[in-house]
């Protein structure tokens, strides 16, 4: 069993630190038990159960840092990994940017652990997949999917007196339903901390319906179109803004947030004034760890308010240099929306394209955050407020920053999962004008 209790983790970390001869030492301990089941061609393919632990030891002599990891936890291995981190630190040149480890911190209690999820068995997984397969077969589609559950813990301790511990559970499910002739494909995914919220039947029904409706797609010319992005499609574009909020990159002039003369977009209007984005680790819909990997407590942070950049992320070194607060990477991101449902957004669209999923997103130009990728698993042409017919997939080249300046309307917020990063978000569906599709794809 790879899951240690708070007391067990604390005792083990104390032992690790007892071996330290460095000026400072910090140890991060994690463990997970995961179970998964994978299926394709309407039958189970591979599945498994994995139990693993990882111990990361960071040792510092002055401003010289070494890091070593190990997953064997006997006394000899614990001492070995500490000695190795110390050797690396002694051999490494001094890093003037080294910041001493944090002292004791206060953390709020988390809501990340759900006992029901921790109690999943191989039979429960097989039953959940069996239900999904039945829905796919009833719909005359061929299903491929994946269900994975995890119970885990993370603990850290350092020689400055910091100690943190958290347990969590999560379950992720995704399914693709393709028509038997391979001409239609639909996808749906859900992620929760609590397995009781997951209904594989209803998720598979969404994928099956999309798969059937997307068959016999027609080709229309690439170009600039008004699009309605479902939250899953919006997530994989917009998250690239959050990934690039680093203050140092912006200050150094090598970010989409950099401006001529060494200035940045901090405090300036970046996108449409209806865009407000914040991170809230205490939102009950997005449970997350109360602390970050380096021990900083998580807090609610405003990133974009009414279109204006309100905060950037700061490493502890850069924050110290700039004399500002060190703000970690956002977690549990919420984008405010409107009151309309997806159907109402479609109803109010004279001519446009409904995009349900985007795929293979890559950065083309970091200067403008230009991204490329393709639509996938259900793209539809809208005319006079109704879906007219499914269309062939497009490649797009678009920047989420430009896109959020071309905002027409936001719908009602819902929880979604990024298929690129696996992160969960609360995001609205959104209507965007002049979204740039550059070529057609024959892929289904």
């Amino acid at each position, binding site marked *: 069993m790879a899951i240690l209790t708070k007391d067990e983790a604390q005792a083990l970390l104390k032992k690790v630190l007892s071996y330290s001869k460095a000026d400072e030492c910090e140890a991060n301990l994690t463990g997970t038990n995961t179970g998964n089941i994978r299926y394709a061609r309407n039958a189970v393919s591979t599945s498994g159960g*994995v139990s693993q632990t990882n111990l990361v030891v960071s040792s510092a002599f002055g401003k010289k840092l070494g890091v070593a990891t190990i997953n064997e936890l006997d006394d000899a291995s614990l001492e070995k990994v500490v000695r190795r981190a110390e050797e690396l630190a002694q051999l490494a040149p001094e890093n003037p940017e080294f910041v001493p480890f944090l002292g004791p911190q206060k953390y709020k209690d988390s809501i990340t652990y759900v006992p029901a999820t921790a109690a999943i068995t191989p039979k429960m997984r097989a039953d959940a997949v069996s239900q999904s397969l039945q829905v796919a077969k009833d719909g005359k589609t061929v299903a491929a999917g994946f269900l994975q559950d995890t119970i885990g813990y993370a603990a850290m301790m350092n020689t400055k007196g910091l100690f943190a511990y958290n347990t969590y559970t999560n379950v992720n499910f995704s399914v693709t339903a393709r028509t038997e002739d391979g001409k239609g494909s639909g996808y749906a995914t859900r992620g929760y901390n609590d397995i009781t919220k997951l209904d594989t039947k209803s998720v598979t029904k969404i994928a099956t319906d999309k798969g059937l409706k997307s068959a016999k797609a027609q080709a229309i010319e690439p170009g600039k179109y008004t699009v309605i992005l479902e939250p899953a499609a919006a997530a994989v574009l917009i998250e690239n803004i959050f990934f690039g909020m680093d203050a140092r990159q912006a200050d150094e002039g090598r970010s989409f947030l950099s401006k*001529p003369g060494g200035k940045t977009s901090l405090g300036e209007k970046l996108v449409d004034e209806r865009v407000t984005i914040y991170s809230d680790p205490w939102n009950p819909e997005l449970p997350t760890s109360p602390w970050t990997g380096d021990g900083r407590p998580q807090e609610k942070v405003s990133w974009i308010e009414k279109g204006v950049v309100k905060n950037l992320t700061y490493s502890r070194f850069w924050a110290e240099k700039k004399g500002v607060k060190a703000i970690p990477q956002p977690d549990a991101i919420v984008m405010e929306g409107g009151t309309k449902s997806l159907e109402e957004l479609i109803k109010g669209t004279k001519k446009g394209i409904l995009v349900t999923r985007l795929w293979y997103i890559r950065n*083309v130009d970091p200067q403008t955050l230009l991204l490329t990728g393709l639509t996938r698993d259900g793209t539809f042409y809208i005319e006079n407020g109704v879906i007219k017919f499914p269309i062939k997939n497009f490649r797009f080249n678009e920047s989420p920053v430009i896109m959020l300046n071309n905002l027409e309307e936001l719908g009602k917020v819902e929880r979604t999962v990024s298929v690129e990063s696996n992160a969960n978000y609360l995001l609205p569906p959104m209507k965007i004008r002049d979204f740039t599709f550059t070529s057609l794809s024959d892929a289904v």
Partner: protein
Amino acid sequence: MADVALNAARSKGASYTDVRIGRYLNQYLITREDKVENVVNTESYGMGIRVIANGGWGFAATDRMDNDSIAKAAELAVSIAKENSRLLTEPVKLAPQRGYGEVSWKAPIEKNAFEVPIKEKADLLLSVNDAAMKGGADFINSFLFTVNEQKYFASTDGSYIDQDIHRIWPTFIITKIDHASGKFETRNALSAPMGMGYEYLDARPQDKIKGVTTLYKERYDMLEDARLGAAQVAEKLKAKSVEPGKYDLILDPSHLWLTIHESTGHPTELDRVLGYEANFAGTSFLTLDKWESKKFTYGSNIVNIVADKSQKGSLGAVGYDDEGVQCGRWDIIKDGVLVNYQTIRDQAHILGLNASQGCCYADNWSSVQFQRMPNISLLPGKEKKSIDDLIKGVEKGIYIIGDGSFSIDQQRYNFQFGGQLYYEIKNGQIGGMLKDVAYQSNTQEFWNACVGIADESDYRLGGSFFDGKGQPMQTSAVSHGSSTARFSGVNVINTARKLG
């Protein structure tokens, strides 16, 4: 330990079992400008047990290596297989595989990178950074990644296989900023991740190809590349923005490897063709009927592409794959026609083969092995032809060096690629540098537009440490070789945009 797992699984009802005991060592050196930001050594040790019971697969992995924990993991693998067997449409059918007894394989490295002192490696990266900064760069981030996989495989077929695998990847990103305009450009290293030891960094004159920049064969001169990169990134800032349209492309192996990877490597994975990756990585346009026809023209008749898991210095080279099959080489595209796929033991019968092609791999002891891409490479042209010979024939073209942005659809039809360096070609002559370049094409159209391939004297490897596939996702390291090649009439777009 392996026998404990094999016996425990058999006693619980497994009809087949394989066991992988692995120790995975990684080292990362991370620097920027005049600072070593981090030195990290990672080590992971454990066992993965895969079984067939009631006709279905089960897998369990543990890092607790006492006999009791191993037996429990074997028991869990069998119970998962039995539980899932009710969801099968047909039982797993394994291609026959003889046991090899006790055998071993070791990567033919000359200098173990893990035995090179940290100081020597840090000094190299800092000298590279210094060269770039003195050359006018504003920033440089440089990295050295080294990997050692020590793997032991045992199966109920009677194989006990010990393997020692090494990989290395030195790389950097140079950034130059025009503070007045706020524009910036980057230039990445032209190195390749390799299945080699530290000898990859022993620069030798015979491994250099001199042209608009220096290109590298089996050894890499990181210092020289950084000096050249610093000058080129400044030139990139001033380069002409490309006029969109049709161009003949001359693609260097440091760029072409990624196009081969995405447009040939992935669509010829048999698990994708069959639909096993439909929920994540996708399926393939290279359906079985195209292979069965024996006349599907994937590319022009000079396009010959091979799979090879025995290629010296490549990332995918091993003696045996992760289900105990000895590795080799076979044709994928022959004279432009699709002739084969990449298979593992439970797929071989679908192609009428009575043996696996040895493409099974797991990225860790904790991951279940499945079909992964072997090294997939474009064979050099048969006629004597240099890079200059290729360029001479081009009226309007672009010479692209280094890999950049990449994206391809889930069936591998439509792709878009960028690079590191773009040079305009006019009337057979290389002109100035271009920027904002990306090309879009369709796989079959693109490979049928291949009208020239340089000879074997230009052959080089590129590759990736991080090919992603599967759920849960696993990474795999794979190389792709080629000589410089010419593609006619490819659509080039301009990627410049304005914010605000």
